[in-house]
């Protein structure tokens, strides 16, 4: 297939573009659009496979259990895991990270311990650790990135014998920089710390292999990788999960409950309290199938090309400042920029009026913004449903934005 044909084949999977044919959706990093196969999977689950998992002997309950536990296996394979007990379902990345903070952080951290956080982290990977720090007395230490969002070697020295946790975004949603996770993980392990990867901007974009990475925990959301909202994943090494107390408690995560004492289920069920979102798991599995069918390599190639093209086109505009790394290999599928003289929210509003959806603001990365001396930025993020034409339209519309503000470029 030639490039054009491939692009329209990709786009054809997404019914949103049939409903909104003029939509240029450049906000994939916030939440992805859904392929038809995912929509249909959810529909089928609700219409013909719906029951409460784990608890029942009847067919619909059994079917739900199969979908749920089968989903665990598929998620495990998707991230290169080897033990399904290492996959915990949550509602989103935020809950996954809170689970680690509450269950691991609150339990094992003490005063003088240190938590090393990459400053480019999302609020969901910062605020829970502030809470842990306040409650346990452990100290927060920030690893500072440079203007391109890269981590200078020297910052690694902040990881020392007191460090218990190292946590960072593999790809930063605030500036788009992709890190090499292995060096951070290696350093963490050398110092006896555990390493947490926030993979929210990586899942569905890159092949993940938790075993090769030797990650201790890894978190991501379904809704950013073509799956529905309301389902997330926490990967954790078995020996860590196994020694952690439960987080949410209640139905389905217990063995025996008496009035005053409870014995808990083994992992991963210990962390899955209450009726779980089987429908969400069904959608997540359909999303994984979709990704594997398109192929992660093909996705990466396509996104890579778009990054290259977007960088090239935006650089032609004298009124645009691009943030993040120059080198394509250090970038995720997003470009962060500002328009001279115009507040990002005004840019986003006017672009929206031209049918172009981007994100403006601090992208839930205020500490990064403060560190880089910015208040707000514009972010264009993309996926296989985007094409170079979208970039051309963005560029055209950016000229219009400037015009509206009286600039004459």
């Amino acid at each position, binding site marked *: 297939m030639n490039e054009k044909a491939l692009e329209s084949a990709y786009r054809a999977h997404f019914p949103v573009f049939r409903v909104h044919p003029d939509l240029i959706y450049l906000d994939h990093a916030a939440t992805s659009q859904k392929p038809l196969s995912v929509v249909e999977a959810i529909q089928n689950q609700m219409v013909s496979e719906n029951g409460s998992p784990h608890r029942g002997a009847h067919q619909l309950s059994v079917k739900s259990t199969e979908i749920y536990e089968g989903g665990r296996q598929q998620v495990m394979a998707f991230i290169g895991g080897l033990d399904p007990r290492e996959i915990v379902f949550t509602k989103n990345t935020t809950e996954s990270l809170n689970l680690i903070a509450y269950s691991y952080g609150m339990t094992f951290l003490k005063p003088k311990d240190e938590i090393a956080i990459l400053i480019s982290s999302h609020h969901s990977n910062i605020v829970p650790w502030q809470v842990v720090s306040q409650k346990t007395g452990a100290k927060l230490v920030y690893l500072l990135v440079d203007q391109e969002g890269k981590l200078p070697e020297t910052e690694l020295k902040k990881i020392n014998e007191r460090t218990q946790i190292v946590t960072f975004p593999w790809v930063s949603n605030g500036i788009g920089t992709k890190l090499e996770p292995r060096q951070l993980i290696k350093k963490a392990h050398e110092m006896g710390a555990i390493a947490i990867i926030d993979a929210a901007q990586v899942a569905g974009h890159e092949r993940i292999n938790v075993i090769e990475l030797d990650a201790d925990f890894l978190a991501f959301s379904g809704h950013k990788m073509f799956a529905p909202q309301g389902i997330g994943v926490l990967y954790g090494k078995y020996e860590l999960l196994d020694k952690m107390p439960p987080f949410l408690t209640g139905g389905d995560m217990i063995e025996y409950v008496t009035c005053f004492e409870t014995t808990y289920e083994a992992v991963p069920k210990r962390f899955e309290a209450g009726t779980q979102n089987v429908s969400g798991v069904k959608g997540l599995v359909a999303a994984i199938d979709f990704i594997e069918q398109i192929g992660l390599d093909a996705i990466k190639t396509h996104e890579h090309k778009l990054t290259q093209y977007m960088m090239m086109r935006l650089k032609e505009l004298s009124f645009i400042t691009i943030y993040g790394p120059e080198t394509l290999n250090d970038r995720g599928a997003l470009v962060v920029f500002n328009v001279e003289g115009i*507040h*990002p*929210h005004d840019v986003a*509003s006017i672009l929206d009026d031209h049918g172009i959806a981007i994100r403006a603001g601090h992208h839930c990365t205020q500490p990064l913004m403060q560190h880089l001396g910015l208040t*707000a930025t514009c972010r264009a993020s993309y996926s296989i449903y985007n094409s170079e034409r979208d970039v051309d339209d963005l560029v055209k519309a950016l000229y219009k934005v400037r015009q*509206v*503000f009286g600039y004459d470029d």
Partner: protein
Amino acid sequence: MMTDSIYTEIIMYHNKEGHNKHLLDHPSHVERGHNPNCGDDLTLQVEVEAGFIKDASFVGNGCAISTAAMSIMIDLVKGKSVEDANQLVKDYLEMIRGHELSAEALESLEDAQIFASLQKMPARVKCGTLGWHCMRVVLESQDSSESKITLDHNI
């Protein structure tokens, strides 16, 4: 192209002009308004004397909508009685909420009428009401102590 029109018709003028963006020598009230989501952070200064708004101005940074709305508001209330200003604030917020105003009330909002289209841009409502909320607080307060407001999620 509703967005373009709100931007072109009014905002440009006030943004470029910036004639209300400065400090007052003798403010009786200073009110800071901020909008965590946008990063808007504007401070309104008002000099109230004998029940009239003698002077007003603002400082700070924000998007075009928040600064224009602030500046147009200042033009509108300057010289008005506290009572009249109060009515303007009420009418303006009603308008943004999408409530029907009397022709008279609408007219009294003069240039600020253009912000009626914010009804259709809910993501920007907080920008367009930031300055007016500061004014509301000023008018409600009897003393001139500095306070700090954060907008809630309703208007």
